[in-house]
Structures are given as structure tokens and as C-alpha cells.
């Protein structure tokens, strides 16, 4: 291999860190005083920590060729569960543990429902999760009585979202842990391999002995779990539970994952990419804010980013491997859109 080739391969391999580096350098040059400070970086990481945690689990569903749009709602629900349990146990430390368990359990339960319905009835994931999004928000609203429930103690709870360990905010450890676990599961366990296989071609996977139903359920449970974890961190960080706590987070999660190169058709992508996506969006947001761009542009910008990322994904692969693409597109459509419901032809 020639030297230029290896250089190109090198660039390709480290494309994502390079993009981040360039972005950081540019922003540092533009805003030398405000951007490149320890406290600003802390705030960037803190800002992405909530949806970073969600991303670590949500990526499983997208790798399967599905999607989980209920993550924001689940976060709200789990926050409410946790806070209410703590209050019920008189702000004791036991209450904190039980509360966190209750929150996580609620998330896993919603995930299980998703997995069972999507897999058993073979219906489009986005429809089901959009519907449960409404239901779960409703449940959270009922739990909180549609009010903000403040919780400023015990310290063991507020530490989760507001504490620091060795000078680093605690939520950052949680993101790191979740992302690491996700990396391990996706890359080093049989389950991870099965997620990729099912997303890549569910029929072939099931004929190769992959338990598609179990894999789907597990993926949605993981997504529910991380969404719940994010909700608990959020509640602790804000020291309150409110049913609108994480509204719209599903868009951030989707943006991060898609920008990170994970295909919505499933079977392709990585947690490293998704975390990169989260960082990129976080730094961009931060940079825009530092440069005085009002936060009212954020929803607009995010919408545009999703459109660009998804269509880029479509076109880049369409060009590279037309044949591969058409086959996969058909597969994906067969699964995602309702064609599946109607032409549920048993294939051989």
C-alpha cells in the first residue's frame, strides 16, 4: 500500500475525532476566552450527559432497524417514580435506592411493552413508540399531579445529578459508564452480534438461529433502562420531578445517533459514532450560544441536521453500493413501513 493511501485510510479511520478537533480549534480561535476553558467544557459535557445516557441505550433499537421515540417520556416517568418513592420513604437513603430502582424498573417495563408489541405484531416501531410516548407522558402527569415536585434532599440523591467526584461532575461518570457498557455489549457479547445481525437482515438472522423476539425485547428494554437512568439524573440535577422534564429529548437522541453514522435501516453503526454525534451536537450548541446565537434557533437547526444526516446516509450508500442498497431498502421498507403489515408474505 502506498503512503498516500495509508494516509487516507488513517484520515478515514480517525475522521470523527478529526472533525471534533477541527471544531474545537475553530471555536477556540473564535472565542478564545469563553470556549477553551475547563468550566465551559464541563458545561458542554454536562449538557450532553442526559441525552448521552439515552443514546447509549437507544442505539440498540436503531441498530435493530427500529426506533424509540418514547425516551423523553420515559425519562419524565422514571424521574417522577424515583422522586415520589424517595418522598414516600421520608427522604431516607433507603428511599433513594428504592426510588432509583423504581425509576429504572418503570423504564424497563415500558421497554418490554415496546419490544413485545413491535416484535409480536410486527408493526412499525415509530408508531408504537410515538403512541406510548403519549401514554407515558400521561402517566407521568398523573403521578406528579401535573405539578412540579421539588426535592432538595437527601444529599445522596442530589449528588447523582449535581455532585462532583475528583472535580468532575458525577453525571459525566454515568455517561461514560453507560457508553462503556454499551460498547462492551455491542462488541463483545453474543447479544451484540445478534443485534447487528437482526438489524442487517431479520429473516437471515432468524434462519441462522438468532432469537429475534428476545433480541428485540432486550434492545427495547435497554433503551427504556437508559432513558430511565437519564430521567433520574435529570431529576436529581434539577432537584425536581416534572412531567415535561425531558420533552423533545428524543429528537436530540435521534440527531446524535444519526449524525454518528448509524443507519436508520439498522445493522450498521456504532456507539462510538453516536457518542461522537452527541459531542458534536453539544459542542455546536455551546459554540452557537457563545457566539450569541439565541437558543430559539436550536429546534430549527436540529430539524435541519436530522434531514441532512439521514439523506446523506441514503445517498452515500446509494452511490457506493447500489445493489446492496436496493435490497436493503426493500427489506427496511418491508419492516418499517406498513407494507409489512400487508404483504406479510411468509418468505421462502
Amino acid at each position, binding site marked *: 500500500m502506498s503512503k498516500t493511501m495509508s494516509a487516507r485510510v488513517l484520515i478515514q479511520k480517525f475522521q470523527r475525532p478529526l472533525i471534533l478537533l477541527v471544531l474545537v480549534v475553530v471555536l477556540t480561535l473564535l472565542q478564545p476566552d469563553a470556549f477553551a476553558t475547563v468550566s465551559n467544557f464541563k458545561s458542554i459535557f454536562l449538557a450532553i450527559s442526559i441525552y448521552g445516557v439515552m443514546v447509549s441505550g437507544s442505539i440498540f433499537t436503531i441498530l435493530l432497524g427500529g426506533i424509540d421515540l418514547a425516551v423523553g417520556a420515559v425519562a419524565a416517568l422514571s424521574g417522577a417514580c424515583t422522586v415520589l418513592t424517595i418522598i414516600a420513604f421520608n427522604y431516607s437513603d433507603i428511599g433513594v435506592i428504592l426510588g432509583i430502582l423504581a425509576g429504572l424498573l418503570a423504564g424497563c417495563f415500558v421497554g418490554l411493552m415496546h419490544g413485545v408489541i413491535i416484535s409480536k*405484531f410486527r408493526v412499525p416501531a*415509530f408508531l*408504537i413508540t410515538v403512541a406510548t410516548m*403519549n401514554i407515558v407522558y400521561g402517566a407521568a402527569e398523573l403521578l406528579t399531579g*401535573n405539578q412540579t415536585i421539588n426535592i432538595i434532599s437527601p444529599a445522596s440523591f442530589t449528588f447523582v445529578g449535581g455532585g462532583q467526584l475528583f472535580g468532575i461532575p458525577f453525571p459525566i461518570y454515568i455517561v461514560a459508564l453507560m457508553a462503556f457498557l454499551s460498547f462492551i455489549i455491542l462488541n463483545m457479547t453474543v447479544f451484540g452480534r445478534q443485534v447487528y445481525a437482526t438489524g442487517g437482515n431479520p429473516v437471515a438472522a432468524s434462519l441462522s438461529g438468532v432469537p429475534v423476539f428476545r433480541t428485540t425485547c432486550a434492545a427495547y428494554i435497554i433503551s427504556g433502562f437508559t432513558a430511565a437512568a437519564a430521567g433520574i439524573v435529570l431529576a436529581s440535577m434539577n432537584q425536581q420531578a416534572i412531567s415535561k422534564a425531558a420533552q423533545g429529548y428524543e429528537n436530540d437522541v435521534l440527531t446524535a445517533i444519526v449524525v454518528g453514522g448509524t443507519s*436508520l435501516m439498522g445493522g450498521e453503526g456504532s456507539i462510538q459514532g453516536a457518542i461522537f454525534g452527541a459531542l458534536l451536537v453539544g459542542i455546536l450548541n455551546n459554540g452557537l450560544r457563545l457566539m450569541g446565537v439565541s437558543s430559539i*434557533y436550536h429546534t430549527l437547526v436540529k430539524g435541519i441536521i436530522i434531514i441532512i444526516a439521514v*439523506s446523506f446516509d441514503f445517498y452515500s450508500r446509494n452511490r457506493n453500493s447500489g445493489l446492496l442498497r436496493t435490497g436493503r431498502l426493500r427489506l427496511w421498507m418491508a419492516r418499517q413501513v*406498513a407494507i409489512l*403489515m400487508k404483504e406479510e408474505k411468509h418468505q421462502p
Partner: protein
Amino acid sequence: MRQETIRRLFSLLLLSILIVAFGATSKLFLTLPNIFTLLREASVTGILAVGVTFVIITAGIDLSTGAIVAFVAMVCANIFYYTTLPVWVALAAGLLIGAGAGYLNGLLVTRLHLPDFIATLSTQGIFRGLALIIAIRSSTGSISNKVITNQGFLLLGDRVSVVYLVTIAFFVVALLGQGILKMTPLGTHTYAIGSSRKSADLSGINSDRVKKVAFTISGICSAVGALFLTARMQTAIPELGTGLEFDVIAAVVIGGCAFSGGRGDVFGSVVGALFMAILTNGIYKYNLPAAFHIIIKGCVIIIMVIFDSVYHRRMDDRIRKAGKMLDQAAAAAEAAGGGAGGIS
């Protein structure tokens, strides 16, 4: 019985159960003023539902309608606040923006090949963002929701004797929508591409064009709904219509449209819109938490999605079995006949 008939009866049954239940428990329910109020409640959702019906019949989905409502409303509010242009300019601008927004959705889906839900989820953010950006602000930068004082515009929120204008508009839009669906080639083609895109293409139908038209109609209906809503509220806020898209989708699927496309019609969606309105009304009347409203929306969507899936599988199975059973009986007879022939 045909699926359409079953579904139509099913949705009418749901509606009448609701009416009977509330009629029996509340004396005020079946009074004329309350009925007209209910119709008004149903109207905005209903107008939007007419448009979304088109999109869902093409096997698509439109999650951006609520955001389009906010954007259009905000544009009108701006026009009235900053200018003294006549009312029709604001109305025309609103409709045009609605149509443009819908067309943009169509373009994203047909040209960029985005899945419908991704495209409209993104544009939901975009339109909501635009509404936020053009919101009228006080000198400190905080949003101030100015009251619209243009009397001509506010007429839209008014009523003719007991009937609210918005209700009349709802029925006009519904009739128009039903007319387009059932009485023009475009309508037939809308059903065709939703039911089987490949077959439609083979019959020489320009699926992309039909899809774009469906989204544009949805955008226009959202704009019409936005105008009436704004006139009634006499102001526009950037959060206007948040979550409205789910009311609309729930109404449409209750009315018999299948997410898998090719089924349902506008009359069904009208029934669905009435259903949702009565439900909401009942929830308030009995002082139930508002949360029940969104919970029921979600449940309705899930149940209908599952219903479709189960129905289709059943149908396919039946056709497979019925079609080939004949075949096998015949093959068996043939084998037997062949044997008999050999003996004789």
C-alpha cells in the same frame, strides 16, 4: 363483510357509546348549546384530520401538523401586529405558508427519500422553531403574546346564530376532501399508491406527485385550522398546537384509516374528530385529570395499529388458504382421477 364497513360501523359504535354514556349521565350533554360547543371543539382537529387522512391513505404519516399550525398562526399575528394590511392578505399568506410547508414535507419524502416520520419529525422542529423565531417580542427579548384586534379576522372565531363559523368551515373542508377522494382521479390514485405502490407505478401513476399533493393538502388544512384557532384565541403563541398532531392522527385512525394505507375516508375522520372532541369534553366535565386525554390518544393509536396488523395477517392467511385449498382439492382429485383412468 368488507373491512371498510366493519370499521365504519365500529367507529360509529364507539361514537354512539360515548354519546349515550355522556347523554345518560349528564343532563346538559344533549342540549343544543352543548352540542354546538362540542362541534366547535371537534372542528379544528377535524379540519386538520381531513388533510392527514390524505397522507395516511398514501401509507404515510404527518407529524408536523401541530407545528404548521403554530407557524401559520404566528405569521398572521405578525402581519396584524406590524402592518395594517387587509384581512385577506393575512389569510392568503397563511394558506400559502401551509401549502408550502406541506409541499416541503412532500419534497423531503419524495426527493430525499426520507421516511415520512423522519421527514415530518424534522420539519416539526423546523416549523416550531420558525414560530419561535418570528414570535413577537418585547424590548427585553421575552415573547409577548399580542392580542389580535383586527375585527375582520376575529370574525372567523364568531358564529352565525348558534353555529360557529369554524364548524361550517369544518364541514365544507370535509365535503371538499371527501369529494376529492371519491370523485376525482387524484383520489383514486391516492388510494392506489397507499394500497400498493408498486402496482400503482406499473399502472403508470406518478406516485411521487400524488404523495406531494397529499402532503400539500395536509399543509393547507393545517393552515385553515390555524386561522380559525388563532381567531378564536385572539392571539398566537409559539406553543400553539403542541401535541395536536396526535389528536389528529388518533381521530383519523379511529375513523377507519389504516397506517398501512389504502383504506379509510374523510367521513370516517369526521367521526373520529367528533369522538376525540366528546372524549375531551367528557374528561373535563367529570374533572378527570387532563392526562387521561393523552393516555387515551396513545392507547387509541396502539390499538388501531395492532388491529391493522392482525387484520392484514388474517386476511392474507385466508386468501392463501382459500386460494390454494381449491388447488389442492383439485390436485387430489386429479391424482385420484388419473389413477382411476389408469385402472379403467
